[in-house]
């Protein structure tokens, strides 16, 4: 999510650049600042996770070898894994390796951690894209329809349903979906998503349906209401009234004039929805056995597979920061007044935001 920009770094340098015939867009210092902050964030996350994993009770060597191994064997493995060095040394060493793309090997299976993680992350992202591809148009159509037909019966029923789905915890939805579609008379979808790793997840869409549906029901209410609220507010603006007075058809007003201006909060919402999907996915992955990043992390923590835990934490943090950055950037680009300032304020004011949060009236 967006933050207020810090004091623009080195405005002086920017001025000099601009004076030296290199016209930099106004938002450049902001972007540079955000990149720096993002980098710092990722670093902080990795450091915290590193410390946390090292503070876990019972050491990875013992976990790998199991309780029947002799203490001597465990000690030797610890030495081989470099676990006896001071924590700071291990961390710096790890950072050095990461900087050149070497995330080490999984303690559990000896394959490079990076490859392992990227594949699982790929599965999760594929699921996320699948979900968003379906949710985005659905949320838009539904949200616009609800905003335009405010307070009609359609609006009210849809709202009730959305509230219902939003409230129910994801595993409840998942279990219900399994009972409905994988067992009994309607058994048309597989309850288990055993993806063939040699194929892309998109080549096996049946496995994606149930997990995606669960996540969709998690995210759709949020996005729909956001769009609805944002569009409602936009539709009350004066220029919309003026367009109506001029006799423009309602549909054109809505889609050509109102919706584009209602977009910025929605983009933020998208970023949040992406985060929700990546976050709510762990439970979905467990219930459907989907080989995603959440269950990989869970397994890695359980087996104290430190390189994998850190690789996942780092890559996920990068992904989240990146998504937020892209969302903020898109918002800036889409909003003319923000494009031209050096200190973009991405919030449209607390009043509007509070109304959005409360779901709009």
């Amino acid at each position, binding site marked *: 999510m967006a933050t207020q920009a810090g004091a623009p770094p080195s405005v002086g340098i920017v001025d000099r650049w601009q004076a030296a015939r290199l016209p930099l867009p106004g938002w450049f210092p902001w972007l540079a600042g955000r990149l720096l902050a993002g980098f710092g964030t990722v670093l902080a996350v990795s450091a915290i996770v590193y410390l946390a994993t090292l503070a*876990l*009770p*019972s050491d990875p*060597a*013992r*976990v*790998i*070898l*199991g*309780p*029947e*191994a*002799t203490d*001597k*064997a*465990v000690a*030797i*493995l610890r030495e*081989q894994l470099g676990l006896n060095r001071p924590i700071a040394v291990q961390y710096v060493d790890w950072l050095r390796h990461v900087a050149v793309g070497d995330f080490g090997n*999984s303690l*559990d*299976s*000896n*394959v490079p951690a990076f490859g*392992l993680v990227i594949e699982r992350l790929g599965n999760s992202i594929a699921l996320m894209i699948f979900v968003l591809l379906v949710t985005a148009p659905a949320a838009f159509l539904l949200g616009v329809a609800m905003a335009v037909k405010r307070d009609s019966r359609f609006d009210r029923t849809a709202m009730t349903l959305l509230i219902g789905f939003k409230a129910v915890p994801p595993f409840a939805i998942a279990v219900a979906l399994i009972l409905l579609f*994988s067992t009994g008379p309607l058994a048309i979808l*597989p*309850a*288990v998503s*055993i993806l063939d*790793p040699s194929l892309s997840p998109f080549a096996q869409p049946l496995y994606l349906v149930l997990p995606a549906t669960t996540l969709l029901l998690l995210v759709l209410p949020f996005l729909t209401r956001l769009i609805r609220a944002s569009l409602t507010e936009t539709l009350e603006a004066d220029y919309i009234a003026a367009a109506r007075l001029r006799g423009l058809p309602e549909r054109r007003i809505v889609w050509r004039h109102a919706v584009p201006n209602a977009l910025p909060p929605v983009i933020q919402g998208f970023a949040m929805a992406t985060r929700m999907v990546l976050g709510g996915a762990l439970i979905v992955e*467990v219930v*459907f*056995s989907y*080989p995603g990043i959440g*269950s*990989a992390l*869970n*397994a890695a923590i*359980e*087996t*104290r597979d430190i390189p994998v835990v850190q690789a996942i934490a780092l890559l996920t943090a990068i992904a989240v920061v990146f998504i937020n950055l892209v969302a903020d950037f898109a918002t800036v680009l889409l909003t003319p007044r923000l494009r031209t300032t050096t200190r973009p304020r991405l919030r449209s004011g607390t009043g509007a935001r509070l109304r959005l949060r409360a779901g709009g009236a």
Partner: protein
Amino acid sequence: MIAPLLLDRRGLLATAGMTGLGLLAGCGGARAPQAGVDEGKPRRGGRLRIGTIEPTQAGNLDAHKPVGAGIIRGWAIYSKLWEWTKACEPTGALAESTEIAPDGQSVVIRLHQGLEFHHGKTVSAEDLVYSIRRISDPQLASPYAGLVAAVNRDTIETLDPRTVRLHAHPGKGLVALMDTWISFGGIVPTDYDPVHNVVGCGPFRLKSFKPGQRSTFTRFENYFKPGQPYVDELEIIEFKDQTARAYALQSGQIDLADLVPVEQAQLLRRSPGVKVVTSPTNNVQSLDMNVLHPALSDVRVRQALRLLADRPDLVKRALHGEGTTGNDLYSPHDPTYDHDIAQRAHDPDKAKWLLAQAGHPSLALTITANAAGAPAALVFAEQARKSGLDLKVERLDAASFAVPAPPGRAITTGGIPARGFLASALHYDAPDAIINRTNFHDPRFGALINAALSQPDVEKRKPLVHEAQHIQHDRGSLLIWGFTHVRAAARDTIGGLVAEKTQFGGWRVDEFWRKDA
């Protein structure tokens, strides 16, 4: 090849030619269970997909350090000197003959002629020596090195290109060696590498390996059993979740599932096209009492806890009835097992009296359980609660549970796959146990075990074992409440899956075949 020893509970039937051969009886019970239906002659061809459960560890391909799903992969890639029969006795596989000296201090192993590895090299004594030195190499840090700790890895003699003599460390006996070495004793060539040159002489060659997900194999045409394996290709898919795997079997996404838990078994028995095969094994289910714990160091407290256990109820609830009760002793199928020791009954009154005597009328202890042992721990805690004891159950994740026998732990859930008496002792309470789960050190018991380990003759070993078992029963630290059945499930199109006395029914990848091949 060592002729199998047929045992039944009433006595011992020895086949001819056994003198001088130290044979440790495996876990056989009565006659090996027959397959229910005559399935006809095995057909060659086709692809077999096995689903196995590996919730967390991705595992590896190392012959001597397999963990989790690596064990079943090991059955595909590697062959060992011996293998388990369906009656759970070790019988020769790669080994043509095995002779233990009468004093148990050395053993001569001879390989069959003409054995080959996957890459064409002949299996020779050199590879055998390499393999045993590898599994016992401290640098490899194999968790199973302790199983062959009796062997002196520095005094191995190569008698001829196919024969090797192993010597024991002084004072240690090799009688249990076959039983202990079988499990993880894959024979590998001298140029073996667990990552880059994964080669064995098992029924299948490795084709691909994705840790945590699946591995594929192709038939090894020069497998030492002629005509086997039957299927062309094998695929082992790892599932994180039992329910998921059960669904996959039901819908035909996999053909076979090993080690099926009881809940899924009930489900699968009702599914068309799927059969569930239940093997009545002697896999131990135990509650291990730490002798170093202040309260448990008193033998009366331990006896009291053993008397508090309502064993049939534990079997009914923790195993859903699919098991048999235990008498705090392991290996009932071993020919040296003393069947005259009376079955301990459920006697809460006597237990309370003993506790009062020991000065602990209301005892508070913690049972540390992992996910598998939690149901039994919860049931036992509830049983004990009725007699006024406050037993708390602490359920730990696998990593925290793996720390072996810390002095602080009072009672821990445990269990081992069925093995012979001496091999089980080496997992539990022998002086040289790879880890002594209960810190039980009784000098007389230790002396008896060590003597038994050097006594290959079964009849002469019996009195030693009997006395040792009496000690275990009277003042031991193990509460062995039962033995569990082991189930495997397969689609009806798969042949070769039969009930056994072992838990390996679902792992005999060289015996499965497709009826629709």
